[in-house]
């Protein structure tokens, strides 16, 4: 085969270019540190590279979200810790106040101290971390708890932040969970419903100057046929008369119509002008947990409170024994006792219907152990009014309040745990993705340099041979 000069040049040039082109690419790979310079270099690789980059970008954003979530939740935890300290202090004051040696003036001084604890607690709950009330909902324009009324005025929305692919965490804790509660803005007594005055009478009945409280009251037993799940269902088939007597007072007859429900009986007692001077009746749902079945009972307390054990109730009815009105009998002297005297109806559920006129009066005491602010206020008014019985009771409340705070803290602790483990996971994912991206995208400098050197050698050899080859032609020898 004949190799012509022109072709030789051409081939040489092409080889030279090929080498230089390859060297240029290697050089660029070295300069950018990237193996894949354009999609065509590695179409499969580029798809992975994009995915890795997206993941990394999302991870770095999640890292920020993680930090934000951590910041909020740790400050929630810190503030709950502060509240716990306040509770400890309040309990000390309650123990101190319950001592017989203290004078009413001393107790008044303690009450002032409790008042300052209340204000400090509200300030703690109204903490704002970078534009956000951590104990509020979505609202940011006003603090969650009104310092004057103690009412919760924010919403109860839980705000979430995404801290990982498919995982999110709560970053606020509405104070309704443990601190105080909301009241319908239309309620005329709204401003009094957290900081309620001592023995405040919500019923507006002048004949009942003191609203009864269930510190001690008579409780109806559960009917043998099963719990009453609807207080409007017929309770007594035949009706009859309840003869109610408080201590040495004159006895009062209350007539109960046939087919009356528990609510009818309650209203019959409370609406009776004579009976309501001595006793107060409520219908309460005594289930202990919200998941338990409903269990409505009639509760009867003395007016004023504290003398419920002196109530006597005789029943005249044709209801079968052990059913209907017979369940409401209480006369230890005659031995006809169906109801039982309860020192404290704690542990039973509240009156759940907010339209019940006794909703707040009954819950007045009852809400305390669940609601921090009410417990402190309860102690404060008890101290102010020198009510040793209630002061004593407050001591017990504070343990429960502290328990509740521990519970909230453990919820936050769980959140922080989740954030921590996710942030570890994200960090690991980031490292792994970075590794994968680097494997896919980064140039192996060592390999490229050795390749470059190799090509350089070839290039030099090419140049040398070419000059040698063309330095002489046959013409040089044919002189």
């Amino acid at each position, binding site marked *: 085969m004949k190799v012509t000069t022109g072709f030789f040049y051409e081939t040489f040039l092409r080889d030279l270019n090929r080498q230089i082109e390859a060297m240029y690419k290697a050089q660029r790979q070295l300069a950018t540190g990237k193996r894949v310079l*354009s999609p*065509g270099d*590695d*179409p499969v690789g580029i798809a992975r590279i*994009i*995915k890795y980059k997206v993941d990394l970008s999302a991870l770095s*954003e999640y890292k920020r979200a993680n930090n934000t979530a951590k910041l909020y939740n740790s400050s929630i935890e810190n503030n709950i810790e502060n509240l716990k300290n306040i509770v400890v202090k309040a309990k000390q004051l309650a123990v101190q106040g319950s001592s017989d040696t203290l004078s009413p003036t001393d107790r008044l001084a303690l009450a002032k101290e409790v008042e300052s604890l209340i204000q400090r607690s509200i300030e703690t709950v109204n903490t704002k971390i970078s534009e956000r009330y951590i104990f509020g909902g979505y609202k940011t324009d006003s603090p969650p708890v009104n310092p004057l009324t103690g009412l919760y005025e924010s919403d109860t929305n839980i705000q979430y932040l995404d801290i990982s692919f498919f995982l999110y965490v709560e970053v606020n804790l509405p104070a309704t969970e443990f601190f105080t509660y909301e009241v319908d803005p239309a309620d005329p007594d709204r401003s009094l419903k957290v900081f309620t005055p001592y023995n405040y009478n919500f019923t507006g009945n002048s004949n009942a100057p003191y609203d009864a409280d269930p510190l001690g009251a008579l409780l109806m037993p559960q009917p043998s046929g099963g719990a009453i799940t609807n207080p409007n269902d017929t309770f007594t088939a035949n009706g009859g008369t309840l003869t109610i007597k408080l201590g040495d007072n004159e006895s009062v007859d209350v007539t109960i119509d046939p087919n009356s429900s528990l609510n009818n009986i309650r209203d019959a007692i409370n609406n009776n002008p004579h009976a309501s001077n001595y006793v107060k009746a409520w219908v309460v749902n005594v289930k202990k947990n919200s998941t338990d079945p409903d269990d409505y009972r009639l509760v009867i307390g003395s007016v004023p409170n504290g003398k419920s054990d002196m109530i006597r109730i005789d029943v005249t009815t044709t209801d079968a024994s052990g059913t209907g009105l017979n369940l409401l009998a209480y006369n230890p002297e005659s031995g006809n006792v169906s109801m039982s005297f309860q020192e404290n109806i704690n542990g039973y559920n509240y009156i759940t219907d907010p339209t019940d006129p006794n909703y707040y009066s009954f819950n007045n005491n009852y809400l305390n152990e669940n609601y921090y602010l009410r417990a402190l206020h309860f102690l404060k008014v008890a101290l102010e009014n020198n009510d040793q019985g209630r002061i004593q009771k407050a001591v017990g409340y504070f343990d429960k309040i502290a328990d509740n705070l521990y519970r909230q803290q453990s919820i936050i602790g769980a959140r922080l745990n989740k954030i921590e483990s996710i942030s570890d996971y994200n960090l690991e994912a980031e490292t792994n993705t970075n590794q994968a991206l680097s494997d896919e995208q980064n140039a192996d400098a060592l390999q490229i340099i050795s390749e470059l050197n190799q090509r350089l050698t070839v290039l030099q050899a090419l140049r040398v041979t070419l000059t040698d080859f063309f330095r002489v032609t046959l013409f040089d020898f044919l002189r």
Partner: protein
Amino acid sequence: MGLTAIFDIGKSGVLSYQKALEVVSHNIANAATEGYTRQDVIFQNMPSGVTSARGVSGRGVSLADIRRMYDAFLELQLKTESSRLAYWNVLQKGLVRVENIFNDASDVALSNTINDFFNAWQELSQNPAGTAERSLLLAKAEYLADRINISYKSLIDERQELYVDSQNLVAEINKYLDQINELNEKIAASPGALDTKDLRENLVKKLNDIVQISYFEDISGRYTILLGGMPLVDGGKVYYLNVKLDSNQNMQFNLESISTTIDVTSLIQGGKLKADKDLRDTLIPNYMNKLNMFVFDFTEAMNQVHRQGYGLDGSTGENFFNKLYDIDIDAGSFGDIIYKMTDTNTYTYDEYRIQFDGTNWAVTDNTTGSSFTPTVTSWTEGTDTYYKLSFNDMEITLKNPSNNLDFTFQIKANTAIYFGVSITDTDKIAAAGKNPLTVSGPMDNENARAIYGLLDDKIIGSSKPIDYYRTIVSEIGVYSSSTQTQKSFQEALVEEIKKLRQDASGVSLDEEAVNLIKFQKMYEASARVIRVADEILSTIFEMVG
């Protein structure tokens, strides 16, 4: 035979070798000329012309012919393959430019911009009332829109560039046709013009690189040039090509024949022109459509979620991005409408009319006049009734349509150009799931989280946004790398054929040097023969003198 015959023989040698030296010199001179075919001299001994029974020596040498060392088969092969090479070459270069537009290997990639946009929503969900976060989000959204606009415009520019390129190529074709026609005439007049043939061969090759043609030589040596059977040069006449844009903005190639203009678009095969046509009218529009579908579905999905949310000022039902279709409601109403492209085709950007009589749906393509029966699925969510119509790679979801609904809509062609942020007031960014003024509060981040969640939702056709995008990039990569492979293969092939052609037609300086010496020696020898004849004559003259 007389003594003087020796002079003649010597003379024939001197003249022949002088001519041979000329040819060799010509070869050497053209060693680097492209397409030059080596010429060779054919010597022939001259017979004596004397009738005799005994042996009679001849009368010297003569030049029988000067031949082009030309292998017609190889030339044809070379032309065909180099035409293919030209095609792949142009295609590969074009793809590199498209690749650059979608280059995600770099740090300023489009996918980063998409990420940044979603990250800004995530940032907003951390502080939904923050002005800084809101402004940042708007800036990122505008950047995303700009970035896609620019990418799309680059594709449009690329198409325009290719059109101009094609116009130039067509002009070049016409120039070559003229020149070939001219050379045809010269060759017909002087069949021995070897170098003219080389020139013509070269022109045909160049022409073939631009567009694949076929040709044959007629008896008088003229080339007839055909484009897929249609004559371009025939019998001294030239038929010119021209290019313009048809109604679909695609290139249309026409041949101006004697009386009419013939559309020869489908006859353009191979060569640079076909590569330009493929790039401009098939490949780039494909990616433009993909970008359009991305932008359209992205906008619709974003807007749908955004409309459900509330801004800081309590506004709701606002679109985040500009609406990318025109809608005209003739009768009736609906609660909400969401479009989705599942693919694109020729009819995607047509105007459609949709009618609902309470039970049946009718869809008419107003642009073509044809009607469709859409696939309808309906469901209820709470008190709302939804209908989803699927037809022609499109899904339309309507909320609570009234019974007499009648409307027309049209998706904007070049959708990606219109991609832009509609919101200007940062307070209108709907981060909240409920009205923050009346129901929830400024810290409500439900909708921001929902929008961030779109990153992981199959909102583009049946793909997640980034997955859809990286499929585009990867596809271009595969295309580009296979084109590169094709090109390299074709290059090797052409090289091989060139080698074969050089073997026959190329000039080797060494060979020419040998020939030069050879003919020089022959020339010297022939001159010596004349001297010998002279000496012999002198000897005879001295005898006489």
